[in-house]
């Protein structure tokens, strides 16, 4: 009934569909552009940086932006532009490690839960529900308090709280596909369970997993920065954006640039991943 009225409604005119087609690609374009900029900054950091990000020139401490130091300098006289640029490398590393670990663990778990079912499904999903009950930051703090502070330990913690997202997603995809005709046909032809898992289910899950990974990337950058800011992630003198702002916090009213520029970089990066993820979701998964 609702489908009929939706189809008849004048809102779905050709011009409107065209506009939507454009706006979806606009999201992907804008988001992709921002992420591309961060990637470019990470790759070209050595070329674009006016100075070494670790070199301390104490006589030049806490300078405001100038031609020589476009973003100014920090409390140790290090060039802030160089540190923000090198920070892009760390942030992308965070995304690759954080999202990568979560996908590597979450996807097989969800796949197993969805295709095998029964007790395996129940135990896996119970574990995921327990992890999911924790607010991400709180779980990460608990894990870091055990493993000790440090960027890599923090990324393990962030990956752990992202695992349930992928497990749930993968399980839903698997459950949806399991009863599809072509999967049943494959089973009737004698395909083994592993073969069905990989050839028929996993391949079709690629789209949703890519969308989710893009959206998780933003969360990973934000969480890693937050926890580094609290001193539980990247340690000085690493040019991690959150850790840089942790230094900047001591110079409020003296030099705001130490906090301003790393925060701007975080915003542009997360914004890029979020817009890109929204666009990809609209494109690859029109239902939601």
């Amino acid at each position: 009934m609702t489908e009929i009225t939706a189809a008849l409604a004048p809102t779905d005119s050709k011009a409107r569909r065209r506009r939507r087609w454009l706006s979806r690609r606009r999201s992907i374009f804008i988001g992709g552009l921002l992420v591309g900029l961060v990637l470019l900054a990470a790759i070209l950091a050595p070329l674009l940086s006016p100075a070494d990000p670790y070199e301390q020139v104490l006589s030049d401490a806490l300078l405001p932006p100038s031609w020589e130091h476009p973003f100014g300098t920090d409390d140790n006289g290090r060039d802030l532009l160089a540190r923000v640029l090198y920070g892009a490398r760390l942030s992308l590393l965070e995304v690759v490690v954080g999202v990568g670990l979560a996908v590597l663990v979450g996807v097989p778990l969800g796949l197993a839960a969805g295709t095998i079912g029964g007790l395996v499904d129940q135990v896996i999903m119970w574990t995921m529900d327990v992890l999911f009950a924790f607010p991400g930051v709180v779980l990460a703090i608990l894990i870091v308090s055990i493993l000790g502070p440090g960027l890599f330990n923090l990324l393990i913690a962030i990956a752990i709280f992202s695992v349930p997202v992928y497990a749930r997603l993968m399980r839903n995809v698997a459950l949806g596909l399991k009863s599809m005709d072509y999967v049943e046909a494959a089973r009737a032809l004698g395909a083994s369970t592993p073969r069905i898992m990989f050839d028929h289910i996993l391949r079709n899950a690629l789209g949703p997993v890519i969308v989710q990974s893009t959206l998780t990337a933003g969360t990973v950058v934000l969480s890693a920065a937050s926890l580094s800011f609290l001193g539980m992630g990247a340690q000085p003198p690493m040019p991690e954006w959150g850790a840089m702002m942790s230094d900047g916090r001591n110079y409020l009213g003296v030099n705001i640039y130490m906090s301003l520029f790393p925060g701007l970089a975080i915003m542009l990066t997360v914004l890029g991943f979020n817009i890109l993820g929204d666009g990809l979701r609209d494109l690859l998964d029109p239902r939601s």
Partner: protein
Amino acid sequence: MPTYLLKKLVTLPLILLGVSLLVFVALRALPGDPARLMAGPEAPQEAVDAMRVRLGLDDPLPLQYLRFAGSALGGDLGTSIRSGRPVTVEIAERLPKTISLALVAYGIAISVGLSAGMAAAINRNRWPDQLTMLFAIAGASIANFWLALLAMNYFAVELGWLPLMGSGSWKHYIMPAITLAVMPTAVIARMTRASMIEVVGQDYIRTARAKGLPERVVMRKHALRNALVPIVTIIGLNFGSMLGGAVVTESVFNWPGLGRLLVDSVRFRDYPTVQGVTLVAVTAVVMMNFLAEMLIAAINPRIRFD
């Protein structure tokens, strides 16, 4: 409804069991000897051994867990290493601070988010909509401690309008509450917009308009009321991320709540407090989510969370 309710009532204790197991295992997995940690680095070996017996660390693990869970249920979360006081007392002192801050932030988020989302849905594809969506997507991408630092720099240090840190007067609430509210405001605005747009396309809205009701009444009475269900859901389910945000916000503003207690306890390696705060916070989140789901199921029997 009965089977759904029953299923939920069975899973709730199972989740809480898992949460307590995880928190318990986390403390056991600590590097080093917990007895040595509690007795202090300079304590003689006899004192450490006595501490081990007193803490029951010689017993088998399942027994230790049962004792931990039993005393937690009875309201005993152990003793803080840092202050030497019961962890429950530490938590009880900080809890009202976190709750009051969260309530003010929720108030801001709901009033701003709801109005912005409504304005966006009513003026779809025009500037109020574009502005709201821009804010919604930017608000979800900003590090709240960045906003906090900028606000502290301008409004507290340079202009001197607001207190920099701490709590006490109503002025102390302004910056932390707004910082904490940004993320949920963005989420609520987005959800309200989407929900309103969907409801406005329904037949009964056309009927209400056709019978000549003023647009304002249609929007407020017919559209918003029905659009509220997913909005209430999202508010309930957002409680967890609100608590997560409070951890960072409280630390920046030196707000004496649970979040800062957690961060300080990690720094001082005060593991019983870390354990206790985590357990209390996660239990609160699980209960809030459960209540939100129950409320929604009661309002709208068609909705199920599976």
